[in-house]
């Protein structure tokens, strides 16, 4: 490993200096040597090609004569530092270029060649005798990176616009729905006059349809808020087991209607946790609702247990199960295992993606195991205390 302190008698005639300059001609980089008076002493083939000046035209002239615009620049300061014995790195991002050379083909007009450079002092008997600069053309790389950056910015803007559109659209949809539900409630309650049984039944159907649609829009709204990074977490002291019991009570009637056995195992003592009760309830209603919705016969089981750090909810069903190739995809938005089931069972395909994202917002996670024909088991783990602010609770 070279120490960079090697004494090279560069500017005295002799083999080492010539060898060094010849070696410079082999490089795909500019090699420029100056003496302590900043007079050019070496100018390799690459620089001849890039600048259009031959070595004869440049060697022996002060660098600032060749490039007057370097006077007072950072490049001049860098040469000064190298001549004081320092090794200097010039990254393109801070300096753009060391030598004002024209950019090559493919860069029209008066574009400058973008460069990264290294400058090293040359010592002889412990004294600085000069400096060598090695210059790399990074124009193409910089252009490529700029393109990539623009593409990434565009994708970012598009994704942001999509989320904002979704949030806006959902609000627009909810407002007329509120009117439909409000007035159909009034009609069904015979507030404005008596209805026939048939009319009441129709009103009930209108109402049920509107409520279902509201649920779907809520899901889309939550999903777009999470994606836009606008979903806040509001932790409070909660008993997760009690929330789970509430959620189960909501889906139990539907399960009983289908003749399913609903099992629940809760811990003996209340669990003390600090979490966002609303989000926890939303996840559990979603998971239990799915279990009941997709299970035609058999049972749905909920198990809740806690250890010192987290509470674990297991929701097991004897439904159709999920084929292995779909197992992770169920957490991607707008995916349902069988597209035909969307029509048969209803839903947006957003329930599980929303649930997993909410679980992660709470500092926990949601996983699934499944066997086709035997059923699925979803495991939700939520920490007893919320993640510290700033800690990455996302994906």
């Amino acid at each position, binding site marked *: 490993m070279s*120490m*960079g302190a090697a004494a090279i008698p560069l500017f005295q005639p002799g083999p080492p200096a010539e060898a060094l300059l010849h070696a410079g001609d082999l490089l795909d980089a500019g090699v420029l040597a100056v003496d302590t008076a900043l007079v050019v002493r070496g100018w390799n083939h690459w620089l001849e090609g890039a600048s259009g000046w031959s070595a004869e035209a440049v060697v022996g002239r002060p660098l600032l004569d060749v490039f007057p615009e370097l006077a007072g620049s950072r490049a001049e300061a860098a040469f000064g530092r190298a001549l004081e014995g320092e*090794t200097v790195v010039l990254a393109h*991002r*801070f300096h753009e270029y060391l030598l004002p050379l024209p950019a090559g083909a493919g860069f029209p007009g008066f574009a400058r060649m973008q460069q990264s450079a290294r400058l090293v002092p040359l010592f002889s008997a412990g004294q600085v005798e000069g400096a060598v600069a090695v210059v790399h053309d990074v124009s193409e790389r*910089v252009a490529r990176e700029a393109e990539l950056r623009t593409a990434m910015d565009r994708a970012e803007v598009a994704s942001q616009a999509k989320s904002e559109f979704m949030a806006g659209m959902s609000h627009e949809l909810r407002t007329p729905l509120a009117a439909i539900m409000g007035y159909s409630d009034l009609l069904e309650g015979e507030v404005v006059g008596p209805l026939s049984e048939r009319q009441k039944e129709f009103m009930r159907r209108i109402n049920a349809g509107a409520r279902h649609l509201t649920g779907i829009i809520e899901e889309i709204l939550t999903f777009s808020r999470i994606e836009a990074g606008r979903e806040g977490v509001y932790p409070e002291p909660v008993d997760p087991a009690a929330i789970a019991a509430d959620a189960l009570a909501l889906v139990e009637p539907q399960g009983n209607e289908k003749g399913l056995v609903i099992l629940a195992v809760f811990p003996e003592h209340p669990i003390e946790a600090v979490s966002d009760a609303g989000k926890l309830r939303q996840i559990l209603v979603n998971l239990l609702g799915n279990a009941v919705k997709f299970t035609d016969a058999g049972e749905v089981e909920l198990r809740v247990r806690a250890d010192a750090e987290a509470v674990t909810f297991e929701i097991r069903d004897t439904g159709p199960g999920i084929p292995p190739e779909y197992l992770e995809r169920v957490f991607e938005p707008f995916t349902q295992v069988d597209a035909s089931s969307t029509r048969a069972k209803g839903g947006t395909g957003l329930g599980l993606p929303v649930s997993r994202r909410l679980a992660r917002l709470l500092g926990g996670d949601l996983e699934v195991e499944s066997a086709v024909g035997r059923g699925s088991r979803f495991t939700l783990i939520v920490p007893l205390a919320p993640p510290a602010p700033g800690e990455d609770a996302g994906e």
Partner: protein
Amino acid sequence: MNLSEMETDALNELFNIGLHRAAASLSDLTGQRVDVDLPRLWVCSMEELKDRLLEVVTGDLATVHQFFGGPMAGDAVLLLEYEKAVMLADLMTGGEVALGGRLDQSAREVITEIGNVVLSSCLGAFGNVLRVAVSFSVPRIHIESLDGMMRSVVIDSDQGVPYALVAATRFGLSELEISGYLIVVIGVKSLELVSQALTERLGA
């Protein structure tokens, strides 16, 4: 080799002077206020170095190595955790590099230049107090594991048993702090030289 408390204090001061200079250069370079300070400093053997770094860094590391020669010779390393290096490159360039959380070639150059500024400022401060010229190799950036870094730290065997002077550093910019480590590995001979020079200065 143990340094007295007074010597450790003096060493601390030496690093502080170097880092202060580095901060001024980086502020000048980026056009924004950059602070570099030194919360902790320790001297240890190479065996200890690995154990102590294991406690404070994880994952891949971005390191800038710069070998130095002269009466005081060894290897100087700026060590950053990979993610911190990405952040630092990003902040220093005003969000211009570090695409997608990766150190691309431009970002690597940026880190190399930052390493060059910090390492040469600090070693320059050493050179001043020792009244010797310190000459440097061209800095190299490596993305490596801690084991890889330990293997890539090289010093001449004629310098004697290697020791590590480790300065925990903090880069403060845009109201954020990014921590890293500055490690100067020198042989016992060089360390004695430093210790001697510090004693003379302190005794004066």
